[in-house]
């Protein structure tokens, strides 16, 4: 069939990006980027002659990091932060997708919920920290809810938007095939919007992780935020920066994990 060749050609075109891949560049280029950032960091320390207590050079932070990873307290702090993040993220994502889908499917619900959601979503999570401390003290609950709150709005707004933009032909096809409104919502609309929802979930992970650490700075008894504030009060600037590096690495890791999970199933 004449049109079969076009199909395979389109398949290969999709894979090819712009520019040629140099062997090993997948590892070397990111390392070069990190080396460049460290070079600027080192240069700043040298040029301004900064004492270790103000800004330790990269190697000093690396030493602090190696000290940290050998302590049990560090791993407990990482565990607490991750636990709070995962719980809040799951809660916020599920609730956000559910409410977003409902807003897209039901005009009645959309009209009712929009004013509340539109005004709440501009109150940044950090504005709630004093209240969560007041209500929940330094327990996990406050932080989990804060993460859920931060994640929820990202997920609600983008789920609603992407479900409403699903190709209307797919809805017609689903109806023609005998699907009820609920089946259409679950099996067609959410599924068709899934790639967009997955990329929102990645953005939401960043927002949620930032919220965890920020909340721990203020009101917590354990977690990476606590580790950093404690290190700062005892003037261990190396540990402060090491903690910050860990936050960055974990955030990047979580984001990469979600991308990997979604890419395998949602590449269309």
């Amino acid at each position, binding site marked *: *069939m*004449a*049109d*079969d060749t*076009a*199909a*395979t050609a*389109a*398949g290969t075109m*999709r894979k090819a990006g712009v520019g040629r891949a140099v062997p090993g560049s997948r590892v070397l280029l990111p390392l070069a980027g990190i080396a460049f950032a460290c070079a600027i960091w080192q240069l700043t320390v040298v040029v301004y002659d900064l004492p270790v207590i103000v800004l330790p050079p990269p190697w000093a932070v690396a030493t602090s990091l190696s000290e940290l990873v050998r302590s049990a307290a560090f791993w407990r702090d990482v565990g607490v932060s991750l636990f709070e993040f995962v719980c809040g993220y799951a809660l916020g994502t599920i609730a956000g997708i559910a409410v977003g889908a409902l807003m897209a499917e039901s005009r009645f619900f959309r009209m009712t919920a929009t004013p509340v959601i539109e005004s709440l979503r501009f109150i940044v999570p950090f504005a709630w920290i004093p209240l969560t401390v007041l209500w929940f003290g330094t327990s996990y609950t406050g932080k989990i809810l804060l993460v859920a709150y931060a994640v929820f709005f990202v997920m609600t707004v983008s789920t609603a938007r992407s479900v409403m933009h699903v*190709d209307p*032909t*797919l809805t*017609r*096809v689903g*109806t*023609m*095939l*005998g*699907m*009820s409104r609920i*089946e259409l919502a679950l099996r*067609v609309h959410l*599924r*068709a919007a*899934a790639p967009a929802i997955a990329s929102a979930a990645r953005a939401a992970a960043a927002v949620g992780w930032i919220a965890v650490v920020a909340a721990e700075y203020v009101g917590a008894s354990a977690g990476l935020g606590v580790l950093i504030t404690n290190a700062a009060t005892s003037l261990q600037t190396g540990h402060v920066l090491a903690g910050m590096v860990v936050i960055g690495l974990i955030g990047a890791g979580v984001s990469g994990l979600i991308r990997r999970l979604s890419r395998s199933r*949602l590449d*269309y």
Partner: protein
Amino acid sequence: MTTQMPGAGSESRATPANPGTTSGGGDLAFEKISHRYVNGSRRTEVLNEVSFNVPAGSVACVVGPSGCGKSTLLALAAGLQPASSGVVRWDGKPVRLGPNPDLGMAFQQPGLFPWMTVRQNVAIGLTTRGRSRAEARRIADDFLLAVGLHDFQDAYPNQLSGGMAQRVGIARALALNPRLLLLDEPFAAVDAFTRLKLQQELKSLLKRYRPTVLFVTHDVSEAILLGDVIVAMSQRPATVQRIIPIEHADRNRASPAYARKLAEALECLGIRSDADGA
């Protein structure tokens, strides 16, 4: 086509010589259908008091200028949108919004689910209508064979060309073994050779299952080949300009009768030919 279509044995369909029974297609009737689209302050009248019948088991081909509301007619018959005024009746009952278990439809844009394989796209309508997975899969494979896509069962829609996707859309509609088959220019993106082949396949399938068919096309010769009647529509706001019955003898492309029908239909569309046919 040589494959035995599943489902044919148990629920064999009545021929059009035996109308009024519930097997086979039912009667489709448009009664004074008017329709307009409202977009802000702009109102577009597309259909103006359109009335015609498609008797059970017959094939009506709707031809008309672009934008005259042919696709709207199909959407109304399918229960996908309500008419501004008038009634569409299927089997004597007014068509309501929502799923119709008798319906199979192929859309102008095939609208395949991108997350499903070709086979799953054809099978899903069968499973939502209560067939078992294994049965749905077998029927899907048979109809994919019929449209020449048996090598692409496991492909995903983004790996298909436009014409191939349209053929999947046709297979999906036919696999439902519908009593009411609505086809919206299903061969528009198919190359000429495949088109001829699919027209033949469709013709033999229609002969076997006798659904009631409303077929929208731009191609008058296709309408003569497949239709029992041609419904010629006017410019927007469209009315039925003429209903041209097609006899068996008219389908012989070498015959003067074919040339006359072609000229008649083209004339309705405002194209004057000197009866030189195609």
